[in-house]
């Protein structure tokens, strides 16, 4: 890797002296080192994976709503080994569940909001010609791509894809079918990719800011990417270590996570033993809790960008928000064990982690409040991105608030590992982060393509998504309250499951409708590339630097290296003709 980081210097500058139009098609589009091309690659790949991950869950929802009944039409497309007569088997259900989680988190959302938006927008917003290490940037994408392929390939492994949940708790995952090995190898690729990416982000933000762009003049989105990069950089390696240890257990027969005297389905296991199943959970959640903030912080960043631009008003409490962001990032490293209250934790430790959990909730509250107060005495422009950004606020609020009873160990006794948890974190990432991502897509699409997406289709897409996404996740809270455990193939085996089956069915229908609601978006996304209205470089009349570049920006981004004179969100400044005051303009120019 240090080889890699040096490798960049080797070609770095002379490569940049090249005349870019000379580049062949492959170097220009496929193996491009241009952060914009890479960003688009990231975003498109991630969107495909999101769609895939969502289709997996739409298939599962049939089994949940109508257990043991053949899945109409689509069921016939699957092999008899996994869906005999269209009826989903539990082992396949578990594979789908595990892969849904993995794909959504590691192959969908993070690559979209970090790899995609981060790569494309961040360098533009700091007025940089490119990432600090363009080659490493390209490498990080292709490593991610390979990781994704490995994950997909695992579906064809004997016994199907990994089926021990995206958390891969040991010893279950160690005794699981071959798919789990593929999963681990895939994870190693994905982790490597995000390491390459994150250090690239940090260096770029520290080294390549335009003149005058001090840290407290950075757009909030850049800040969110900055903190996120640190989380990825420091939280992922422990998971990499854990993955290596689990690989050893599976392949070399070591007993890191295998205690003495295991008897699996009546067979005494050959493992020497002496390992600790909980070690995996500690290593995993040490990553996975920061990962939760990796999933949400860039979303907050994007929402901040869209809200300021559409309220025509500076961000309320910008500095406080930045401090909260950094504090969140720091705290997220010392809350992980609140995922493990039920593993038999004593009062003191549980109290400690519960306290840190309560404390970490405050900065989120601060950021949310700041965003809402920004609306006060503003002038709200109901554009499509703004609708998604506004929807983000209450949705994320629900997601955050429902985390509270889970953070209280005593309440967690009842709610832990029930649908309540599912509802909670899906409210954070689905109508939270994914809505933020939609806001980002509609907001920056003109910058990427030079054309704007269709507003009418966009608004249809928004309202349908907003309605049905709530129809999907609200019922889960009631199911969880009734005590329905998560990851059940057929909850109607339990009396309490039967009683709330109605909610399950509602949730399933919501999911399928939500799927349909994405059609207008997909149409809009592709049609607008050709038919979309041509727009100027700064269609939203925003202040941040990316709008100072031409749309779409050429390789190297800015014709003349911009100089920054003021903070990121100078809207409706008294005494200026227009209601926005771009960062790179002098008083005279404005």
């Amino acid at each position, binding site marked *: *890797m*240090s*080889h890699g*980081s*040096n490798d*960049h*210097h*080797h070609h*770095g*500058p*002379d490569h*940049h002296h090249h005349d*870019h139009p000379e580049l062949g098609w492959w170097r220009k589009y496929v193996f491009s080192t241009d952060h914009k091309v890479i960003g688009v690659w990231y975003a498109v790949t991630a969107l495909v994976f999101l769609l895939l991950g969502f289709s997996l869950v739409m298939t599962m929802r049939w089994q949940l709503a109508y257990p043991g009944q053949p899945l109409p039409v689509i069921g016939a497309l699957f092999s008899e080994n996994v869906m005999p007569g269209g009826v989903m088997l539990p082992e396949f259900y578990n594979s789908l569940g595990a892969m849904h989680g993995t794909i959504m988190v590691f192959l969908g959302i993070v690559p979209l909001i970090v790899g995609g938006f981060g790569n494309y927008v961040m360098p533009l917003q700091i007025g940089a*010609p*490119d990432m*600090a*290490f*363009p080659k490493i940037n390209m490498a990080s994408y292709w490593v991610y791509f390979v990781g994704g392929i490995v994950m997909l390939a695992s579906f064809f492994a004997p016994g199907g894809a990994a089926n021990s949940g995206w958390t891969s708790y040991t010893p279950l995952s160690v005794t699981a079918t071959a798919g789990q090995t593929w999963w681990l190898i895939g994870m190693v690729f994905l982790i490597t990719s995000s*390491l390459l990416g*994150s*250090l*690239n982000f*940090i*260096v770029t933000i*520290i*080294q*390549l800011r335009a003149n005058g762009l001090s840290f407290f003049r950075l757009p909030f989105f850049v800040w969110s990417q900055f903190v996120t990069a640190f989380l990825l*950089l*420091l*939280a*992922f*390696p*422990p998971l*990499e*270590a*854990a993955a*290596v*240890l689990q690989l*050893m257990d599976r392949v*070399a*027969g*070591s*007993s*890191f996570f295998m205690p*003495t005297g295991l008897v699996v389905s009546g067979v005494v296991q050959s493992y*020497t*033993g*002496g*390992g*600790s199943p909980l*070690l995996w959970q*500690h*290593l995993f959640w*040490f990553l996975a809790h920061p990962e939760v903030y990796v999933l949400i912080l860039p979303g907050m960043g994007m929402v901040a960008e869209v809200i300021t631009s559409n309220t025509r008003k500076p961000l309320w409490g910008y500095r406080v928000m930045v401090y909260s962001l950094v504090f969140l990032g720091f705290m997220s490293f010392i809350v992980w064990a609140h995922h493990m209250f039920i593993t038999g934790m004593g009062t003191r430790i549980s109290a400690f982690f519960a306290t840190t959990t309560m404390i970490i909730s405050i900065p989120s509250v601060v950021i949310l409040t700041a965003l809402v107060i920004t609306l006060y005495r503003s002038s709200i422009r109901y554009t499509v991105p703004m609708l998604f950004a506004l929807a983000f606020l209450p949705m994320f609020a629900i997601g955050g608030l429902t985390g509270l009873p889970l953070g209280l160990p005593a309440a967690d006794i009842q709610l832990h590992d029930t649908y309540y948890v599912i509802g909670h974190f899906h409210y954070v990432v689905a109508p939270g982060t994914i809505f933020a991502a939609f806001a980002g897509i509609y907001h920056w699409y003109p910058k990427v393509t030079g054309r704007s997406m269709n507003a009418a289709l966009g608004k249809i897409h928004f309202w349908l998504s907003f309605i049905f996404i709530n129809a999907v996740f609200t019922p889960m809270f009631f199911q969880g309250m009734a005590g329905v455990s998560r990851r059940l193939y057929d909850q109607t085996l339990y009396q309490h499951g039967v009683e709330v089956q109605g909610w399950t069915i509602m949730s399933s229908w919501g999911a399928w409708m939500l799927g349909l609601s994405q059609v207008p978006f997909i149409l809009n996304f592709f049609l607008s590339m050709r038919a979309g209205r041509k727009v100027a470089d700064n269609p939203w009349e925003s202040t941040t630097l990316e709008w100072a570049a031409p749309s779409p920006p*050429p*390789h*190297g*981004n800015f*014709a003349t*290296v911009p100089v920054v004179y003021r903070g990121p969100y100078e809207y409706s400044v008294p005494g200026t003709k227009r209601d926005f005051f771009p960062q790179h303009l002098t008083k005279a120019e404005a």
Partner: protein
Amino acid sequence: MSVAVLPHTVKPHPITGVYSGKLGTWLFLASEVMLFGALFSSYVLLRVGAPHEGPAAWPTHDQTHLSWKIGGLNTIVLIVSSVTMVMAWANLKMNKFAKGKMYLAATLGLAMTFIIVKLAFEYIPKFTHEPPYLPSTNNFFALYFTMTGLHGLHVLGGVIVIAYFLGPGSKLWHRDPEYFTNRIECTGLYWHFVDLVWIFLFPVLYLL
């Protein structure tokens, strides 16, 4: 259309005082610290939690079949290689290309020695021993092979990088000596880290 040159790739950034490559290397090392940190904490946890008797019990010194002599030898080899690495960089800084390359070659040689010693005197004898000592023997050996194996891979990575700079990579010197020197510096940083990891591994596995 004119394309801006990527700044701070060779010359340090006026404010941060480092060139990008160096900063990147440091960040990479930070993540590496987390990686090995996780492994070391696993070591502690597993050793503390190990049963007191039975096959899974933590082996005593004579059961570990690790000779501190060989380990010590390798430690010295790595430390010396770190010194030669610094010498290589210092000479390049003083524009002594030939001498710098010579020290670089020495580092490469020492790195190779480390790997050969590790394989010839430690790994292979353990695999061929009757009964063989494998990761499945007990968690001590599991950790031993995992940690030293991972460290070994890092050494191998270093070998590849250094070999590259001795060979094709060294052309850069004639185009831009400062560049080349910087890259050797980054490699050095990485190399010292690999060395440092071993300095932790040696006592933990051989002496404690």
